[in-house]
């Protein structure tokens, strides 16, 4: 019986076409793609299979075919492509000089994301920097040192090892000496350092704290350095763009969601703010979240003059 198989093959062919289109021009195909994806769980499943194949294929190498594992094209090309695609804001230099980082003289550049954007870039030394919404990292690379400074927001830095040029991560008064994968976050006078892999020392003024994998440390701009604490479950998932909460006050949920969106959600009244929410959603979709919360908690949903979503208790409550 070939009927169901044909249907699967046809959907997968459609899914492949979508991937081909998105790889060519994601932005202008995005809305139509997401509608197609959501039209049926079968579409979603077919696309996920194609996408998995595509992702796994990134681990193929050329080694066994033309005798060399080295890419034929300059290895900085992916970065250049990322720059073009994401309109990476470069301060002080052009793409061509970014390609020279790691060999040439001093280089300074910035990585910036807009509100709602989460982006991951590979620097030419192999270091991967993932920026959360509305974040900025300034980089200075010289022949003898590599420095990344978090100016605002949050960044995950997976530092490529380079024995001659140790990586230095800074945020406000804090310097992280080493460590392999580190999250840095700046938020209202607080710097949070999360050690995801490896171990590192965190220097604040004269103090130095050792941080091992799975620990985080919060440092206030004024005041003492607290002891490291263990990571909680949801602390590390932000690069996926998914926001997870377990029995959290709605006020907390909405504040976090608002970081990712120009359109804000407001809660009218303490009773609403104190409702407890458990669940996962993607940041950046204020309308979707507002409607889901209104439905789930039986709240009244209205729009403010600035377009914000306002959730309030229904009348008679």
């Amino acid at each position, binding site marked *: 019986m070939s009927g169901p198989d044909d249907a699967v093959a046809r959907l997968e062919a459609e899914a492949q076409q979508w991937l081909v289109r998105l790889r*060519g021009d994601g932005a202008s195909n995005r809305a139509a793609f*997401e509608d197609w994806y959501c039209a049926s769980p079968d579409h979603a499943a077919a696309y996920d299979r194609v996408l998995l*194949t595509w992702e796994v294929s990134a681990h193929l190498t050329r080694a066994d075919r033309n005798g060399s594992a080295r890419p034929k*094209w300059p290895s900085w090309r992916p970065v250049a492509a990322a720059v073009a*695609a994401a309109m990476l804001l470069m301060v002080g230099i052009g793409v061509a000089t970014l390609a020279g980082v790691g060999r040439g003289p001093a280089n300074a550049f910035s990585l910036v994301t807009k509100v709602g954007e989460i982006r991951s870039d590979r620097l030419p030394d192999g270091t991967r920097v993932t920026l959360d919404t509305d974040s900025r990292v300034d980089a200075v690379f010289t022949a003898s040192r590599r420095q990344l400074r978090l100016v605002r927001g949050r960044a995950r830095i997976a530092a490529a090892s380079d024995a001659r040029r140790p990586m230095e991560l800074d945020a406000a008064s804090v310097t992280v000496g080493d460590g392999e994968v580190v999250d840095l976050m700046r938020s209202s006078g607080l710097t949070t350092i999360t050690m*995801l892999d490896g171990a590192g020392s965190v220097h604040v003024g004269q103090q130095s704290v050792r941080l091992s994998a799975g620990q985080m440390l919060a440092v206030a701009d004024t005041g003492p350095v607290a002891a490291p604490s263990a990571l909680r479950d949801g602390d590390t998932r932000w690069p996926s*763009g998914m926001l997870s909460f377990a029995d959290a006050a709605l006020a907390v949920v909405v504040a976090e969601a608002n970081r990712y969106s120009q359109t804000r959600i407001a809660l009218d009244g303490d009773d609403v703010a104190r409702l407890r929410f458990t669940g996962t*959603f993607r940041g950046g979709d204020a309308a979707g979240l507002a409607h889901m919360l209104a439905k789930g908690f*039986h709240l009244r949903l209205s729009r403010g003059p600035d377009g914000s979503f306002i959730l309030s208790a229904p009348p008679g409550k």
Partner: protein
Amino acid sequence: MLYRAQAPKLLRMFVRRADRDDAHDLVHDSFVQWARLPEEERAKIVNPEAYLNAVSQNVLRSRARAAYHRSIMVQDEDAGDRASVDITAALEARDMLKRLDAAMVKLDPKTREIFMALRLDGATYAEVAKRTGLTVKGVEWHMGKALATLRRAAGHR
């Protein structure tokens, strides 16, 4: 080395896949969200069916957005994602990569080189078109052909 099957990223794909590949999981996800609500919140839901529908649409929308972002990535190594890795996933990943590798060998050399340039070098269609003298449409055709071949080789999952 033929592959880097130990790459945590690769393994994570399979772990992620394992809990979302099936259409039925959508229902499951929605139900879990509902079940996790505190009891008094659940009691407030007058029409659980409509609520579950809304949640499952929301879950599907989230997946669509995630799929979009994964699709346009230039290099998709989300370093540091700490999802746990299990041994079954590791073996499956290695297995699929082996099958893909075998399929690549059978591809027309031109299609293969174009796919490799797009996939491994992060080249754009326009760059490959310029390099090969093909049109962008032509490059897209090779990309589609390579994807179809790989997809078939990857197996039913």
